């Protein structure tokens, strides 16, 4: 008996329809239950998940770079420790997510290959640079804030391993947004230069953060299917609205403004209105024409390639030890 993943690997053709499996899968989704790796699942469901979960993992890994950029220059030892712990968490989160994706039959090596060859996507937000320390604040407050809005509903995603990884990630990430907020708060209330640094940074990150939720619902063809499968729980626009409603009052606490003159409370809707976003910019970065796309991939590729000899050494050592202990075992048997 093989898992869906193993069957898939041995034969790359479309899976034969399994009526009983299909019925069971439909029942699970209808009852809002979790699908587990050994369950039959439609090919498209599996493909969607592999794509989404591996993209999510890649985003965590690439996302280490813009913040890693400031570890060596953090302006206080406390901030240095916090930043280091946060970037390290991101490596951990990438690992949890690669593990979840791997249960669908794609080994991590393959996903890494897809990432460094430029075939796989990751969140475009990480293709923006971090020229100032205040960007550590903006990434925590806005980027992680948006990510959390996206991620909390994913703790209930229909695919079990993904949902479980997200539970762990959300738990660990609760400090990420707060530390970013604190960085900005200290800057905003600090010297004039610090305040300006904070405002300038928020001005740069506001729109890209809002675009993290993806294109408007009308232009997001895959969303409906993901929602039907209980992978996605809320639409892009719903989540974006939720995020704006959250950050407008937070910006007031920070004493910073958001760079959108159209932000206004709408009594009727019970939400903040906000201006249109420049989606051409979004698609530009997505197509690889962002400020740091090449830098991010090159850095990842270099780390992976320069680490090859270390990974090979450890594998060779393990094999050597295995052969030695096997030999010792045989000698013991023969002696007896």
């Amino acid at each position, binding site marked *: 008996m093989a898992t869906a*993943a*193993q069957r898939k690997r041995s034969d790359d053709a479309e899976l034969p329809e399994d009526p009983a499996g299909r019925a069971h899968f439909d029942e699970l989704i209808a009852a809002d239950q979790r699908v*587990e790796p050994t369950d039959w699942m439609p090919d498209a469901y599996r493909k969607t998940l592999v794509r989404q979960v591996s993209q999510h993992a890649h985003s965590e890994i690439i996302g280490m770079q813009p913040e890693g950029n400031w570890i060596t220059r953090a302006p206080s030892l406390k901030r240095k420790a916090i930043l280091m712990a946060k970037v390290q968490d991101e490596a951990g989160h990438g*690992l949890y997510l690669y*593990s979840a994706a791997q249960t*669908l039959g794609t080994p991590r090596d393959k996903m890494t290959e897809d990432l460094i060859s430029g075939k796989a996507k990751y969140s475009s937000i990480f293709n923006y640079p971090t020229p100032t320390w205040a960007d550590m604040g903006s990434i925590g407050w806005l980027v992680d804030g948006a990510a959390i809005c996206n991620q909390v509903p994913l703790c209930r995603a229909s695919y079990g391993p993904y949902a479980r990884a997200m539970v762990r990630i959300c738990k660990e990430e609760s400090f990420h947004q707060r530390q970013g907020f604190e960085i900005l708060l200290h800057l905003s209330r600090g010297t004039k230069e610090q305040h300006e640094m904070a405002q300038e940074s928020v001005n740069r990150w506001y729109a890209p953060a809002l675009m993290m939720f993806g294109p408007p619902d009308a232009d997001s063809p895959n969303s409906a299917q993901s929602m039907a499968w209980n992978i996605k729980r809320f639409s892009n626009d719903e989540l974006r609205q939720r995020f704006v409603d959250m950050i407008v009052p937070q910006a007031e606490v920070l004493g910073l403004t958001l760079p959108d003159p159209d932000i206004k409370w709408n009594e009727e809707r019970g939400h903040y209105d906000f201006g249109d976003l420049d989606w051409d910019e979004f698609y530009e970065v997505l197509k690889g024409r962002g400020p740091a796309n090449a830098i991010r991939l090159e850095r990842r590729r270099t780390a992976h390639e320069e680490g090859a000899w270390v990974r090979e050494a*450890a594998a060779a*050592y393990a094999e050597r*030890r295995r052969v030695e202990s096997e030999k010792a075992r045989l000698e013991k048997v023969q002696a007896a």
Partner: protein
Amino acid sequence: MSTPGTNDTEPWPLWEVFVRSSRGLSHLHAGSLHAPDAEMAVRNARDLYTRRNEGVSIWVVRSTDITTSDPDAKGAFFESPRGKEYRHASYYTESEGVKHL
């Protein structure tokens, strides 16, 4: 059959990690990771899954060494206990209200 996600072609194999969160509790599955051998696997598990005081003891096991019950035999495996409510204390209602029972 082994656990999902195992793959013989990877240079560093996949390991499943079980963490005991405090003394007196069982080891629970925490997740998985890649490591070249058992010694490194248990160390990687420590670094990855106990960064926030989550554990006092760790097990690691090669994912390929875990045998899983057959999902297609779910009926044959897990039907039997259903309908045998008499295995549970809640089945016995006549002693309700009697102390220490």
